[in-house]
Structure formats: structure tokens, C-alpha cells
């Protein structure tokens, strides 16, 4: 599936219940900060401020430490995340193969900067450090699929094709994602 998206629980009550359960499970445990952050993000899709505060409290750490850890690891997101993630690899191999120009073109194409969401909350661009596909450098990942040996032009083509697929499906069933994208495969549990 090329357009597989990461989806999250949308039922707020269910989210709250699961989060309370998570906090309970790790309460008072030393070194629980990272699993708590991971669990929180899996439930909410990102780590809102009140979630961070509750995680810090449950872990018995100051908020400053929780925020420090969450901003240190690239796996954590402090802002809500759009439905589809486009990751531009800036690892060493990609960097020397022109990742900077690819990022620039994709940002232009979607009208946002890296780290931002499109206003329709469909796309996010992220700059990441090495996705582990150096042989295919330069690499762009769209959700879980890697596209390699790109030029800036080819990268824009790939993204445009993906967009067409997403938005075509959206027009079709109104769910904002192509068929097969609504499952829970991407959920981080």
C-alpha cells in the first residue's frame, strides 16, 4: 500500500481512558519517561502540553525534563500532525546527494516549511536524520514508503502523484485518504 496513513483514535473519551490507564501502569516507576511519552503519542497522535504535564507528573520528573526528552528524540511530536508525513532524509549520504534542494522544492510544492502542516491537515514535511536507506540516496519517505534516487524534479513528481491519489480518494469517499488508508496498521501500539 503506497498511501498507507497513520491514523489515531478520535474518540476523546476512549483516548482519555487509555491515557489514564497508561499513566497508572507506569506511575512511580523509574525511567518511565520515554515509554510514557511513546504511549501518550500513540494515543493522541502528538504530545499536547497537558499530556506532557501529566506524563511528567506520573514519571516524577520536572516538566522541563519531559520537554527536554521529547524535543531530543525525533520520534516525538509536540504539535499535531497532519494525516500524511513526508520525510526528507538529511543523513550524510542524502545530504551530499542534494537533500537540501529536494527539501526546498517540496516545501515550495506544498507551501509549507519543514515541521509544518498544510492548512487542510493532510501533509507534514519533516527533515529527518537518516532513514536507513543510504543506498538509495537521496531519499524521501511518504508515510512508510521510501522513494529513492531522487532529483528535486522527481521528488516533486512523486509527491504530486501521491497528492492526486489522496485527494482523488478524498473526493470519492470523503474520508481524506485513499482506500485502504483508514486502517490501523500504522498505529504505534
Amino acid at each position: 500500500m503506497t498511501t498507507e496513513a497513520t491514523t489515531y483514535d478520535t474518540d476523546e473519551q476512549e483516548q482519555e481512558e487509555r491515557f489514564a490507564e497508561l499513566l497508572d501502569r507506569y506511575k512511580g516507576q523509574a525511567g518511565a519517561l520515554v515509554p510514557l511519552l511513546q504511549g501518550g503519542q500513540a494515543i493522541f497522535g502528538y504530545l499536547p502540553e497537558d499530556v506532557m504535564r501529566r506524563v511528567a507528573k506520573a514519571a516524577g520528573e520536572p516538566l522541563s525534563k519531559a520537554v527536554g526528552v521529547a524535543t531530543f528524540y525525533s520520534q516525538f511530536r509536540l504539535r499535531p500532525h497532519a494525516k500524511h508525513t513526508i520525510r526528507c532524509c538529511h543523513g550524510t549520504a542524502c545530504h551530499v546527494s542534494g537533500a537540501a534542494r529536494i527539501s526546498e522544492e517540496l516545501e515550495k510544492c506544498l507551501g509549507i516549511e519543514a515541521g509544518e502542516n498544510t492548512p487542510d491537515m493532510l501533509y507534514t514535511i519533516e527533515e529527518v536524520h537518516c532513514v536507513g536507506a543510504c543506498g538509495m540516496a537521496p531519499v524521501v519517505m511518504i508515510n512508510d514508503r521510501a522513494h529513492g534516487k531522487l532529483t528535486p524534479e522527481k521528488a516533486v513528481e512523486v509527491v504530486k502523484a501521491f497528492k492526486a491519489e489522496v485527494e482523488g480518494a478524498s473526493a470519492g469517499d470523503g474520508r481524506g485518504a485513499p482506500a485502504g488508508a483508514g486502517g490501523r496498521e500504522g498505529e504505534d501500539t
Partner: protein
Amino acid sequence: MSATETTGDQVVTPNKEVVTLSINGQEIQAQAGQTILEVAQANGVDIPTLCHDPRLEPYGACRMCLVEVEGARGPMASCGTMVREGMKVQTHSEKIVKLRKFVLELLLTNHPLDCPVCEAAGDCRLQDYAYEYLVDMVPWGWRAPLAGDPGTHPNIAHFGARCILCGRCVRICREVMSIGCWGYLNRGYDSEVDTPYRLPLQEVDCVSCGQCVSTCPVGAIVGQRTPGGAREWQTEKTVTTCAYCADGCRQVLHTYRGKVVRVASETEKGLNQGNLCVKGRYGMGYVAAPDRLTKPMIRDASGTLVESTWDDALKSVAEKMTAAKEDKGGRAVAAVCGTHSTNEAAYLLQKLMRSVVGSNNVDAIDHGEQAAAEEALMDGFGLPVVSNSREELREADAILVIGSNLTESHPVLALEVIRAVRLGKTVIVMDPRVTELASKAGYHLAVRPGADLAVLRAMVKHMMELDLTDTDFMAAHTDGFEGFEKSLADVDVSVEAVTAGVDAELVRAAAAAFGRAGSAAVLVGTGAAQGPKSKAVMAAIADLMLLTGNVGRPGTGLFPLRSGANSQGLADMGVRPDKFPGGASVADAAAAARLEAAWGMPISGLAAGVPTMRLVDALRSGDIEVLYVVGADPALALRGEGAVHEALEQAGFVVVQDSFLTETARYADVVLPAAVASEDEGTFTNGERFVQRVRAAAPPLGDSLPDWKIVQMLANRLGADWAYAAPVDVMAEVADVAPPYRDVTYEKLEEVELQRPCSGIEHGGTAVPCSKGFEGGKAVFAPVEEGVAETATDAAFPFILITGSVREHHGTGERTRRSAGVTDLVGEARLRLNPADAETLRVLEGETVRVSGRAGSAVEAPVSLDTRTPQGIVFLPGFSPEVPINHLLGPEGSPAPAVRLERVDG
């Protein structure tokens, strides 16, 4: 601090293995467990550091302290490497110097060189080392010299661009303060130090202690720029002792053009080791307050205070005192002394009252909150003072804190308890509110106000049930156990717990933890030291210590907390209506005879004077006609509902000697302008009996004079012929007449803080006075009293009003209210109210309520919603004349009052 290395006559040096190593070819002996850095510094070898602060655990981040160790794989961080036998260390080899220079080049590439406008210039490690290692160019270019915005905190400025990521602020806020305002953001080249979400400091639990300011090695976290400010090399430095609480912190006052412009602290020096609190660091504004008194004043016929001369003012006071004395005898005159008067001034004040006026009516404004502890400890241990000191508090396995919001009332002493919490030791907090310490401690016994005695009964009973008693200690050192045991016969732990409103299992667990500790200490604050059962509470705590053998050893003991800088000193100097200097009773004929001989004036046969607790009555009855108030504000401090106002109105003649027109000065007939502590010389004795110097950093403002000088002038007006040229002469006399101060001299105080009583000049004093048994033979168990001192609430008066400290203010607030550094943080006294109660009353945060007591008195205060205050209880601090809480408190010895709250519309 050699003082704490001695216990009685026995020097305690931990028997540590000695290792021999060489540093730069020089053979050096050191103790195993020391780091290379510590050993080098102790031997005069200077190793540069950026991320090191002795208050913190070694971190090894900055790589400036790298040294070469023969045989090691690479350069070692000397701050985190322990010395070993035979180690060969090079601290300044060519390779090391090159590495350090490289580190500095990397740092300077990214550091804005805005040194000409940086607060830290002249006091910046990066600047020092760049100069030392001659970093005159960096290969990667410089950063533009823009430091950015200082942030909105009134005292603490943060310039993130200047940060070198040493992490000292992050660590000191977590390790020392246990708060954690600062943290890292992001990773690698993008790393920064900031608050979470870059929130303003005021919004992240910051207590404005400025520990981060004191540790920042560069100009990233500094004091906010002040208009008259100046930098390191422009200011003169004066080492002195803080004049607020009884912690006795060492401060360094920076003076520029005759004004104190900054308060700093010195790492590894003083009892505080470089830590201060918001008052100590940012509460000096009062020194330059626009309403400082600079001229004596006399109330004229129209009732207005008008400026006068010293001559006229003193003449007026002397005439009134003489007249009262001739009319009714010396006992018609009374003096009341504030807790920031120096020992020297306090000594002269009581000498004036006893020998010149002929009255034992001389007392401290805080006697009421100290009386129970002094009496109970005298009865139990034969020694009415704290039995240990804070450094050995670190050796305690368990610490019990009763009736004190310690992190606010004694913010620096509290750091020792915070440290114990962090190290996983047993900390038990007994307090109705969820204080900061209660929320961090292992056990919080949320006792109902006034019911401390029930918890203590339950705790001692449970310890006896579990056999957690020190029978050897009791047999050797105590009497009266039978009576004590009998008094507990009918005590039921569960019943007591219900009375106190605390879970019985929690009480049992806390008692077991305390009883099982190898050494345990108790800190007891004024919250438990007042009220009808206060003496019984103190006696029960003393019993608890005796039962578990926690007296007379390091890491044990009872700390009755005192709230004023020289509260202990006042008691020592004889500023008590029933005690001479040194503590002898005024009924002790031999002691009186000795003083008569020393003073050359008759004092024998004077009846004990009126204690502060009975001052209101004595003024109302006319027994006291002339009231001489030195550095205190009885109008706000004395308890007794409406009676305080009436008593001061009725007083025949009131003299106020202070730096400000206090609330009491409204009733004054003469006002004498006093210098503040930073303009005076002398000593304070802190709550742990450490005698420390107070030094003048600037001359007295205007015509104001130091207290000791004013008292001497007045004494001479009244016919004495005192000729003390300086406070040092007074201390010489104190050493002569007050046995605990026998060996205290200013020369000795230049080197160390003396913990009195001093057992010999070669010693730093006595850390643990009871280590060789108790004065008068054995300690005595007191039978534990029944009952509690609960407040009777009902539908009409449903809330219990409690009072206490807030971190930003001190006492009745005369000085803190005039210091912008604290009033910008906390400007008004607010009533803390649980949100659930607020909802019932339909009041919102910030709205004003009227608080009325049964006697009809009422005050109005804005509400602050506070989940730390339980339902049914409200808290009001006592620092504000707008909210004179003493009008709601019953006379000394009354339980906490029941009050009614009503919303004030408008």
C-alpha cells in the same frame, strides 16, 4: 567550617584511606574518594572549569578540566575522576592546553561577544579563560553580538544566546532546589537551555532564589539590569549575614557609589554554601526605599510627627522615662526588641533597661512563638536551644518536620531536607497544608490544625508497641520514663489518628520509619509552637527524641525553628524578662551579683518583667506607661484581636526606633531613625547557634544611626557613662558576662562561623552540646498530655484560619514590602482558599472577601485559589498592614481562630 567537625572535645575525622599521587611532578597526599579537581584546587593547582559547581554532582560536560593521567587511554575529566594511589597527573601539558583552547574556540564561535554590555563582564569564566588561553581568533567566524531579550522576570534575566550549555542552571534547579525550571530543548547543534515551552520563569514554579544566577559561569542567566547598577570591578564587596530569617546566610553586598546595588553569594562559603533565597538575593530594596527615616521626629501638640534633632528627641525620651521611673518605678517602662537587632544592640538594650531604667521589662517581639520550645527543652534537656546543626542534618536517616512550611519560612535550611528527600531518606512532614515539602516527602501527615499532639501521642505509642526504643540510651541518660509510659497507657493509635484527621496506617508507617532510623532529627516550626497545647507538643517531641535515643549524636536532635535573623541572639543576650545575658534566671542572686559587679550598677532584687505575650494587658491596665520599641512592629505582630490597637492608644508614651514609619509609629510620641543592617556592624546568632558577623556596606542614611549607638546615647542621657566606641567593645563585654559567648571574638569570627557555646578558642564551637550527657545530669521525660487544641467551628464560623510565612516576605513585612524585588512577585497578602470552598462561596480568584472572627474583628483580603490548602481551612500571611491578621488572632495561647468568609461586592 571547622565548627562542624567537632563534637564536644572529640574531633570526628572520617577514617579515610590516604593516597599519594603526583600533580605536575609535585607529590601530593589526598583522601580516597576525592576527585583530581578537588585535590588540585586544595593544593593550589588551578584547573579551569565551566560546568563544575561544588554544590552539584560532577557532570563532565565542558571538557575544560581535562587532564592527562599517565597510563589512561585519553585525557580525563578531572571533575569526575577519583584520585588513585600512584596516579601521575599533568594539568597543563601542551596537549591539554591545546584541547582547552579548541573547546574555547568552539564556544566562542557561537557566543555573542557583547561583553561591553553584558552584566557578567568581569565575572565571566569564558572571558577569563579566553584571555588566559589567548583565544584571539576562531577558525569558524564570530557570531553577531546580539544577546536578545532579557525576559520578563523582575529579578532574573535570561539571555539564551550567551548560553554555553554547561547545564549548571538545569542541574542546580533540579539537584539543589528539587524544582526543575530549566531544561534542555532540542538536540545537537540546535540544543538550548530554556524553560519548558519557553514559558516566562514566573509560570514554571520558579521561586526566584537566583541559584541559577549564582551558578551561571557566563552572562546567560544574570540579575536584571538595574538603573544604578555596576559590574564586578566597579563595586566594593562586603561580606555580611542576611538580616531576614534565622538561617544566617552569608551574603556578599556589592556597593557602588555608596549604594548596595547587588547581593551575591560565594560558593563553598558560609552555612549556605552560596545558596540564597528570594529575600536574601532580591529583597534589599528597602535599604534605599524613599520612605527611609533620616531624621528624629517628635509628635507636636497638634498630633503630627515633625522632624527634630537627636538632642531634642533623646531629651524628650529621657524625660519621660525618668518621670515614669520616679512615679511608678522602673517597671513602668518596657522595651520590646525586633529580631534583626544585632547581639550588640540587644545586649545594650537590656543593659539599659536593667541597670539604668531598673526594669526587667525587656523582651523580644517573637518571644511568644519561642516560649514553648524554650521552656520544654529547658525542662527536658536542660538546654533551651537547638541541639545540632544543619551540616550534620545530612547524616540523619530520617527527618520529621512539624508545623513549618520550611521551604518558605527557612528556604536555605530547607535545602538540607530537600537533599534528604532526593537521596531517598525518610522525610515526614506534619502540616495541615500540602506544602511544597509535604508534596515531595515520603510521608505527609495532614494533621488538623492544633491536633499535632494527637499524632505525636500515636507515634510514640506505636514506637513502643514495636519496641523501637533505645533502652541503653534511656537507662544511661534519662529519668522519668515510668511517668511517661503511664501517660501513654490508655493511648490508642487509631483513636488518636481519627482525632488528628490522619490515616492511622500512615501514622503507623511514619512512626515505624522514624523509629527504625539509625539517627533521626526533628525540625519544629512556629506552627506547632503556638496555641494552648504548644508546650505539651514540644515536650512530646522531646520525649520522642529521648525514647529513640536521638539526642547528642551527629544527625540527630531537635531543631526549634526561629523566624528572625537574631532571634536566638536576643534570647542569649538576655532580651527576656526573666533571663540575664547567658541564660541565668533573674531570680539567681549570684548571677545578679556578677552582673552588678561587671556593670557597676545595682540590679539585684528586680522582679521578673512582663513578657511580650502579656504586653497588651500590661499596657491596657496602665502598668506600663512608656513603651520603647526597637526594630519591631507590635501593632502588626502582637495578638489579641482589637485589644492591640486599644493598648497602644492607651500607652502613655511610645518610642519607636526603626528605619521606617511602622504601623506602631502611628502611636509613637517620638520616632528615632535607625540604620539598617547593611549600615551596621555587629553579630547575629542564627537558629543553629552560629555567631556570625554583620558588616556595614554603606554609611547610615541621613541622620539615622545604628541601634547600639542610639541605645548608648539614651543610656548616657539617663545618667550612665557608657563609652563603647564600636560594637567590638560591646562583644568583649558580652564575652565577659555571658558564659556561652566566652570565647567569641571578632578576630575569630573573621575566619569561621562560631557555634556557641564555645568550649575553647581553638575550637570552632560546639556542634552537639549534649554529646557528653545533659546539663544537670539526666534528661527528663515529661508525661504526654491528653487532648488537642482544636478550633471549634460551626455553621456561623465554618473555617479555621491559619497563618504563617510566605517565601517572599518576612515577619510583619516592614522591609520586604519596601523591596521591589519581592513586591513585584508578591505584592499583596491573599487569602488562600480551596477551590471547592470557593465554589460554595461563589468567589473567584482575585475577588475580595471579608474574614470575620467571633470577637467581631474583620479584615478584607483578595482570594487566591489554592489546592494545597485543604477544605475548611484558610491561610493568610501576616506581612501586610492592609490585612492585619493579628486582629483576628486571639491572645497568645489561643487556638487558631474560627472565621466566616463573605464576598465583598464591588
